[in-house]
């Protein structure tokens, strides 16, 4: 990551020098419409898993403490998510909430206690109409064609507008250098620097090489993923035969994480 940064910096510095003025180089980049290219492209290898609309379904009946912890552990360890004890600066991609808080608009006074306290896994909903993407001033957060809402941590300026816009509290910010807080670094995944926003990316790096998202893999069948646009996909069949709810659908972001109850 450090290296990539340096390279990028050199490139920009070089461009700047070439045109004498940063202003000119800026003009150059803008008029050539390079901007979209970087955003839309992602690699498709021979065994890449593809979909028109990725989505996730979480079966609340099958979740238990162990599965929940396994999912969090799997995701956070492979993605080098730092373990920061201070709640103020904590970073999380997928975490546990109680039903009462994850779906507080559905809570009612006579709800069975075990339902109120039912553990729920929450993560970025990879919304179809994501507010976070709409507000980002640099396109650092963007939606891929297959519906995954992505973060370009090299472009993020850390304005945290996306955090104010996301109604699901799905985003975290690196309030300081996260690296000292990573217990065991996974050298295959980049670490982040201070001052950028991050969140779940639906393991797009695993999909690329034909693997399912990490949480799905360790969930013992409690988490299902698939293509919403394909009527024959497993997720569509499950959604057609089960009752599912989503978080805050009334806000119109159209979340693509479904909870089977």
């Amino acid at each position, binding site marked *: 990551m450090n290296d990539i940064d340096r390279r990028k910096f050199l490139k920009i510095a070089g461009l700047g020098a070439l045109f004498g003025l940063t202003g000119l180089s800026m003009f150059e980049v*803008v008029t050539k419409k390079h901007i979209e290219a970087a955003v839309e492209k992602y690699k498709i290898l021979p065994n890449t898993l593809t979909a028109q609309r990725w989505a996730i379904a979480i079966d609340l009946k099958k979740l238990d403490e162990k599965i929940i912890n396994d999912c969090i552990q799997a995701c956070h360890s492979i993605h080098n998510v730092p373990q920061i004890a201070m709640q103020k*600066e904590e970073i999380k991609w997928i975490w546990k909430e109680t039903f009462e808080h994850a779906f507080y608009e559905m809570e009612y006074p006579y709800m069975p206690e075990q339902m109120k306290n039912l553990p729920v896994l929450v993560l970025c909903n990879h919304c179809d109409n994501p*507010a976070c993407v709409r*507000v980002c*001033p*640099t396109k650092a957060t963007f939606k891929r064609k297959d519906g995954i809402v992505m973060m370009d941590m090299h472009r993020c300026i850390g304005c*945290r507008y996306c955090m104010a*816009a996301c109604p699901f509290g799905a985003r975290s910010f690196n309030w300081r250098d996260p690296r000292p807080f990573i217990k065991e670094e996974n050298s295959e995944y980049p670490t982040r620097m201070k001052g950028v926003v991050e969140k779940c990316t639906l393991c797009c790096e695993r999909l690329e090489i034909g693997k399912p998202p990490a949480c799905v893999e360790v969930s013992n069948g409690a988490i299902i993923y698939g293509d919403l646009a394909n009527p024959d996909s497993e997720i569509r069949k499950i959604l057609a035969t089960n009752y599912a709810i989503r978080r805050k659908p009334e806000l119109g972001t159209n979340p693509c994480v479904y909870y089977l109850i």
Partner: protein
Amino acid sequence: MLEYALKGSKRYWTWVCFLLVLIGIGFIAYLNQFQVGLGITGMSRDVSWGFYIGQFTFLVGVAASAVTVVLPYYFHNWKKYGRIAVIGEFLAIPAVLMCMLFIFVDLGQPMRVMNVLLHPTPNSVMFFDMVVLSGYLILNLLCGWVVLGSERKSAPPPTWIKPFLYIAICWAPSIHIVTAFLYQGLPGRHYWLTAIMAAKFLSSAFASGPALLVLLCMIIRKFTKFDPGKEAIQSLAKTSAYFLIATILFYVFEVFTAFYSSIPGHMAPITYLFSGLDGFTKLVPVMKVCAVLVAIGTIILVTPPLRKWEVTLAIGALATFLGMWLEKGLSLVVGGFIPNPFERVFEYWPTLQEVLIALGVWSLGFFILTILYKIATTVKEKAVFDKYGQKQIIE
């Protein structure tokens, strides 16, 4: 004209040095933030904007409020503002600069700020905010400087500047409307999700801006030979009074909507601000002080004898300014984040370092303001006005 800023009394230089020291302290604090990251602030995962963005929001209002002086003067030929039109325009310049600086110090990756221009994103309100802010800065620099320059030569302003003056007047509300849009278009943030936000922003700006101008005019009159005129100050105070009342009304409308409808999400932030939520009450004293200040400001500014007596007027203007500052500079931003998306309360309070950095930015603003006003008043000291507001040169 810049040379005027280099000649001044001892008091002038003491003030300038005082500001420079504060700027220095703020700068050192910022260097530390730059090193360590925004972790030195009180912001968190749940309250991701705080004091900096609050100051930005408040100062956009101060910048926009220049229009309350410039508009009556240029559009309605309100001669009494003839002497202070430039004072208004020159207030806008440091205000916009402070706005930009507050955004800058709030960035996690400030070195990448150019990304906003490298990857222009018209669907982001922040992009437009930057456009309107920089446009407004340029317009005010141009207008203020040209008008003052011709005043020095005791000539009328050149005709080519007229269109720019008019554009600047129409432009001013836009900077505040766009800033309101920054907030009011976000799903799930009930405290901000109100169509009245932009209106409330404008009214509170036009209350706090003229209040500040009243104070500045009083200071200028005390320390220089230039007199902005009693009537100009009174008019400013009246402007402030009207908009202060509008602001209070708008707030009452919001409270009514939230509590008469009884929608929990809409009530929660207001409850948090005024009486605390789930036992968390950090902002309650702030809102209480704010309410008292606004009450004092309103009573003084709407009661003619109190408004006319300069001692009470100064108190009223100060109370109005500080009251609006507490509302917009702190509680508005924080209130939007509480409760968080999981209906939990996570509180925010600025840290000392955060406050020092903010103080540094404010001092830089006042430093620029001092320089600009020094120039303007030196030019103006040389001109005397008759009772019709016409210039009489006595040099």
